[in-house]
């Protein structure tokens, strides 16, 4: 009953489902490495999804759609930036506000696109890969953004650990007072990180509406932004683990599509709970080791920064 073709189909679906999570969570990872928790990922994804869809639907140009989605996410994230960095608002509250604004704005201005369909993105042909036995079938069905998400993860891991920029970001996140004393512009670095986080969430949202579904429905992220935030904790702030975590969620999510195929007599609504229940479960498993969280979490995470002079 379970044959190769089905497994390939499931893996393809799982990797596609994981892709928006990888983009959004990588963005949040950078924000948190710089010391801020932005709970507005859900709102930024929605804004990216609707603007990306509007552009993709109108022009048929995917690169443009992702660019616009990224810009929209970054613009929205600036509300969070001003609230947290200049007005010293509690980070959790500011992130929640962003989620509500993003949800409302995308639903309000997305009305004209509600329920419309667009032609999705075709797979990326990589010479050689698709000729491989069995696996070739998998590679020949993945689109460019799936690969780009993995490249982004690798690039972020490299930048964080091997470059001066990464060192500055981590310094700001570990101890903003020391970084400030060393002459680093804490506010400047955090603005950059927050904008990057917004752009990545926007791309994740645009992938959801332009490639994965491909259509726009208000509130279509259905908690993916929050799962992305949870993924960062789950990955203990490491890009490679983040990708693995996202694939795991991808697999769990598509179980609801294939569950009945395996002869599981479980109602679809119960299967649909799985990604959320798994998120809770992995959070519990990771968080129960408080030392591990403390050792890996950026030292200044969530703390307000008020330069003394």
């Amino acid at each position: 009953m379970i044959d190769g073709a089905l497994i390939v189909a499931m893996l393809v679906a799982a990797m596609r489902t994981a892709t928006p999570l990888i983009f959004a969570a990588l963005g949040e990872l950078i924000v948190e490495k710089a010391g801020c928790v932005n709970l507005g990922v859900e709102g930024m994804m929605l804004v990216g999804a609707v603007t990306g869809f509007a552009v993709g639907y109108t022009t048929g140009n995917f690169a443009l759609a992702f660019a616009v989605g990224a810009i929209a996410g970054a613009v929205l994230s600036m509300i969070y930036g001003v609230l947290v960095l200049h007005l010293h608002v509690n980070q959790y509250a500011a992130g929640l506000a962003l989620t509500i604004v993003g949800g409302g704005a995308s639903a309000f201005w997305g009305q004209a696109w509600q329920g419309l369909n667009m032609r999705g993105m075709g797979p990326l042909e990589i010479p050689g890969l698709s000729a491989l036995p069995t696996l070739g079938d998998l590679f020949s069905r993945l689109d460019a953004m799936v690969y780009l998400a993995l490249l982004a993860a690798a690039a972020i891991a490299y930048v964080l650990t091997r470059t001066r920029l990464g060192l500055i970001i981590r310094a700001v996140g570990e101890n903003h007072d020391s970084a400030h004393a060393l002459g680093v512009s804490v506010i400047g670095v955090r603005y950059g990180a927050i904008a990057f986080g917004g752009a990545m969430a926007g791309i994740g949202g645009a992938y959801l509406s332009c490639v994965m579904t491909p259509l726009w429905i208000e509130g279509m992220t259905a908690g993916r932004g929050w799962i992305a935030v949870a993924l960062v904790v789950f990955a203990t702030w490491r890009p490679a683990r983040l990708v693995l975590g996202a694939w795991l969620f991808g697999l769990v999510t598509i179980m609801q599509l294939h569950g009945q195929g395996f002869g599981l007599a479980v109602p679809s609504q119960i299967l649909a709970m799985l990604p959320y229940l798994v998120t809770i479960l992995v959070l519990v498993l990771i968080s129960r080791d408080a030392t591990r969280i403390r050792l890996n979490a950026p030292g200044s995470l969530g703390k307000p920064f008020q330069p003394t002079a």
Partner: protein
Amino acid sequence: MPLRLVPRTRPSRLAQYGAPVLALVFTVAFGFVLFLSIGRDPWAALHAYFVAPISSAFGLSELLLTALPLALIGLGLAIGFRANVWNIGAEGQLLLGAIGGGAVALALWGEGVPGTFVLVCLTGALAGMAWAAIPAFLKTRFNANEILTSLMLIYVADHLLSWLVHGALRNPQGFGFPESRLFSPEALMPILWPGTRLHIGWLLLPVAAVAIWFMSRHTLAGYRLRVSGLSPNAAAYAGFSQPQSVWISFLLTGALAGLVGAMEVAGPVGQLLPEISPGYGFAAIIVAFLGRLSPLGVVLAAHLLALILIGGENVQLLGVPIAVAQLFQGVLLVAVLASDVLVRYRIVRIGQLETDEAAA
């Protein structure tokens, strides 16, 4: 002119009252520009949004009816936020209250037991409390972030409700529609204001507000909650346990949200449906902040948020998407948070600051 924020030694009293008003003015101004930008007469639209819905006795009763869930949940959330406990999942606790209360109403359907609605409300409160106990347990026992767990449980509750109204609790004579039977009359909340939908559950609002005010001001538990929010280190030094704050905050809010859920299905809704809340659990977060986490403030803020929800429905008649209500909520929350800076900080010119310091 370079400006700097200087922390105040004590919060400004004027700003405490002025800041929410300022935030409201900003939101209305945003609405004006928004309506103008989509080609509506802004004055007419603002009138339709904020004035017309409460220009009749029935409209006022609807405002009170909508403010009730927001105020009850907001009162609980404010206690938690003060203690730095972040229950974002009140919407899920509300849904469980609706499921629990609804299940009792359906179990006693047609039995004619007098006062069934009391049982419905009690079960709802217990169900909400039980749902809220999950993130509290995961937080205190496993250190799992309560924001994420309580939020994930909203989606789980939503699917649970959907499953039940599609299956076990579906109306057997309902032609397969995903909805329960209409509750029997004895399971419905008795009407308080004849000719409207306002039910006797409203009487709980002043009771809850005074009880929570009393608890937070005049009991040791309330004092502990406030201290653990203001200064976790001081609370720990005084031997106040953080797990206790988490439990009190979650169970209290869960009970209130569950009660709200039960009163919604036994009140204006009258049956179980896949969708029973227009986001009361989320709007209550704004209510708590707008009310500056004080019981009286929360009650006032709930009526304002209720107007935003009702007004959003009303301007649909002018062809404005209902999503405008969520947009207003978000803008209002941003404005509330931003204006709070005036309470905690003085804005001074840099030159001014040096003069002040020289004088001191």
